[in-house]
């Protein structure tokens, strides 16, 4: 298809995706009422990726572009995953442990230095 014509899709497709995004967002919001843990983290990530995927694929029409463009856009962010991995490794395995082991910071401190602050609820541990 030449650029004379552009993207033509039935309106119903957009309404479906729109509705779906609302549902997924609602699901995302309700994870906030769950207990912290692997299930919650998995759900947060799943909803996030589903939502992002539909926005990019359908609303931004990437699904219908040529592979040359799709790969030019989706491959470079792989470098960001590498950066994320490196930073997570260093943060925990080096910086945080140094602070705890060598500088004697309490790894599980009480949450409220100011006990009079009504906004602050001490964490149980």
């Amino acid at each position, binding site marked *: 298809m030449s*650029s004379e014509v552009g993207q033509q899709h039935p309106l119903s497709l957009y309404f479906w995706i729109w509705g779906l995004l609302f549902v997924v967002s609602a699901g995302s*919001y309700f994870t906030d009422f769950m207990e912290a843990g692997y299930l919650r983290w998995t759900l947060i990530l799943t909803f996030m990726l589903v939502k992002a995927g539909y*926005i990019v694929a359908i609303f*931004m029409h990437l699904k219908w572009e040529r592979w*040359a*463009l799709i790969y030019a856009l989706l491959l470079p962010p792989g470098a*960001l995953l590498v*950066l994320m991995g490196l930073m997570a490794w260093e*943060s925990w395995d080096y910086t945080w442990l140094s602070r705890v082991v060598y500088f004697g910071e309490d790894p599980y401190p009480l*949450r409220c230095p100011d006990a009079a602050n009504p906004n602050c609820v001490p964490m149980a541990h």
Partner: protein
Amino acid sequence: MAQAAAAGHATIFEDWGSDVTTFKGVPWGKAMMWIFLLSDTFIFSCFLISYMTVRITAAEPWPNASEVFSLTMFGAPVPLLLIAIMTFDLITSSGTMALAVNYGYRRDKKKAIRFICATAFFGAVFVGMQAFEWTKLISEGVKPWGNEWGAEQFGACFFMITGFHGMHVSAGVIYLLIVAWRLHKGVYDKTNYEIVEIVGLYWHFVDLVWVFIFAFFYLW
């Protein structure tokens, strides 16, 4: 353009090795917008990764976002209420933007302009709610250098990330209104109205970034 994805992976090498325009069937403005958005992805990701880094390294506990961002409704605190409303507002604007792009390619100028203006309206509402959120938090003592709930880096990350995103939304609203005005004046009448898709790409990206901010900053 449209059915090309079905043409198979071999087209990658043909397109990149063709010694002429690589992104075939893509107007140059659209290709440049995509490349800009890719660079913007790197900026936002660097912010989110630095947030991850300071959060992991903080020996003090990280403030609990669902407490910090709760609103009191009918005497009970509702966690992340405003943030949820902002999220739904942004998805609504994404939907109206998608419709504007569709009507643009159908050469229905009036409807395209109307939906672009609706998108700008929802964007402005989002910025308004964010201004309210910032005011409320600052008055409660969240500052870039400290807060009463825990690790002091929380404020710095919050203002940096949401501020940069809010700036994108504000710029997007101005961009949308300029495009709507120029569309109305007939500036793009000799084109295929791909400008609507280009501004749409920017707007969907702003919504996309919010998806990640919502997951990592507010929910995690």
